[in-house]
């Protein structure tokens, strides 16, 4: 533990009516790395994300972000610490335009005051333009300019996936939790995602934790991998180590393999 830990999860557990969805899980994420969480369906990967996002209350354990105890914060304060996220089943604001979605992504940096906005005092417009400018940078990065004014409900799946990533980036997070960024995408789109993840890591300096099933993508972008099964950690290491790990192979393929 020589390097400073960015995210530090200790002995994290949660039970849903006797089911140990996450059982005594500990791991650390270092600044600047891409950390992948893998495991079979129902292993508890998304549950870990929802615990970090404070949607669930853990039964035991601790989550520290730097020196901040995340368990002391309500869910809407998490992003203010610099932790952004996406969802496995895209959670966009369906009846709003792409631009509106991205501007909600900026909410963390916005002041809101209904009185001021009702009268649209000059300061409101000034702020809007500043945020609009920032949003455009993300639009450029993820190449979604042509969808800018479209409603989410009119967009194809792949585009929605990109918009959700863009929305998370608009918050300018330092840690990004990506829940299956490549699920449902074709090979070409998955390639795009891997390039973007590299860009996000190198150019924006964002640390990434991702849940992903596509092992090629994981091998390509992840620095370290955490494998879990039935809520328990079975291995932690580089992608190659994980691929060769016997327990991981058992978890995926059964003991006979």
């Amino acid at each position, binding site marked *: 533990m020589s390097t400073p830990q960015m995210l530090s999860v200790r002995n994290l557990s949660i039970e849903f009516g006797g089911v140990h969805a996450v059982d005594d899980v500990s791991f650390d994420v270092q600044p600047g790395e891409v950390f992948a969480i893998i495991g079979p369906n129902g292993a508890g990967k998304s549950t870990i994300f929802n615990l970090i996002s404070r949607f669930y209350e853990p039964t035991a354990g601790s989550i520290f972000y730097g020196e901040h105890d995340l368990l002391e914060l309500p869910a809407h304060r998490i992003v203010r610490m610099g932790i952004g996220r996406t969802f496995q089943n895209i*959670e966009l604001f*369906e009846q709003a335009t792409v631009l509106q979605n991205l501007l909600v992504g900026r909410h963390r940096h916005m002041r809101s005051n209904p009185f001021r906005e009702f009268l649209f005092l000059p300061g409101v417009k000034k702020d809007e333009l500043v945020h609009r400018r920032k949003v455009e940078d993300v639009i450029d990065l993820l190449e979604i300019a042509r969808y800018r004014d479209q409603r989410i409900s009119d967009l194809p799946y792949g585009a929605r996936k990109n918009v959700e990533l863009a929305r998370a980036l608009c918050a300018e997070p330092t840690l990004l939790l990506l829940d299956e960024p490549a699920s449902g995408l074709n090979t070409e789109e998955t390639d795009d995602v891997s390039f973007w993840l590299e860009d996000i890591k190198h150019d924006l300096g964002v640390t990434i934790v991702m849940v992903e099933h596509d092992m090629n993508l994981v091998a390509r972008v992840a620095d370290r991998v955490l494998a879990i099964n039935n809520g328990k950690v079975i291995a932690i290491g580089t992608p190659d180590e994980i691929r060769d790990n016997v327990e991981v192979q058992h978890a995926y393929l059964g003991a006979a393999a």
Partner: protein
Amino acid sequence: MQYLFKTRYEDDVRFLAKSGEKIRVGLVVLFMLAAPLMLQDYYLAELGLLLVYAIAGIGLMILTGFTGQVSFGHAAFLGIGAYSHSILMARAVPFSLSILITILIAGLVGMIIGRSASKMHGFYLAIATLAFAILIETVFGEWKSLTGGHAGLAVPALKVFGVTLAKVWQQYYVDLVMAGIVIWGASNLFRAPTGRAFIAVRDSELSARSLGVNVEWVKIQAFGVSAAITALAGALLAHQLTFLAPDVFGVLESLKLLLMIVVGGLGSILGAVFGAIFVSVLPVAISFLKDVLPPSIGQKAGLEPLLFGTIIVLFIVFEPLGIYGRWLKLRFFFETFPYYRKASFVRQKSYLKTERMR
């Protein structure tokens, strides 16, 4: 088809980007300003009432159409507005101050209701707001020293800055100015952070939360703003009614407001205005119809509710987006003529959502 070339970020903040919109809005404003010259007092009063209902509709639209919190009791806020304004005016509080205090009271009550409602969803919220409305109606009936109880309360004459405005056209202009302010202000809200947070809470509380939106506080705000605007409508309505009784603000009135925004088109300011036109014009149209139809049908009791109900059912079945949705299609038809296709508006089914946590 008109393409919009945006060259500055201001273009995204601006209202009325297309030249056609400017002309249309200009024509409507011109007509509204000139209406007293063209219309008889009866129709002018109806037009004033329409404006008041448009304000109330926008109030409810902000809560139900934009924030996704259904309210079956919005007539209560209409009533709070009407009663508190009348009571204040009767105690010689000037009009502008009385309106301000009324808005503040209603906003505060709205926020208190919002505080408890922020933990409820769907049916429970509907029942809670309904119960609130019944409660308020009872208070109006029983607090005799203040409201005059079921005997009613006479509304003081409309007097703005010391000038008594007794003529229909004078009252009409007061309504018009207020409606203008509310439409403008409400639209402002939705090109700014607060309004976007409302929409975010409506479409996905989960991701709103993960982006830093304090969902409970947003709901409290939405209830507050909605109640304040509806109470403003109530205050103006009091001057139209000239006499207040508790049963005016009963459950039926709440339903009328709700039907108004559903028929008008949920999720748009314009929808609330269309809804107000619908509920104001239909009774007039029906009374015309009564004269035309043979007496055996025309004079039957219950013709009006029947037609009202039928039209609402037809809207819900064939045009869930309401009159506003029709309007969008019509506009699209002319803008893209002759390329309009029915399929232009067919929406794909949204994806399965399994991660909802409620």
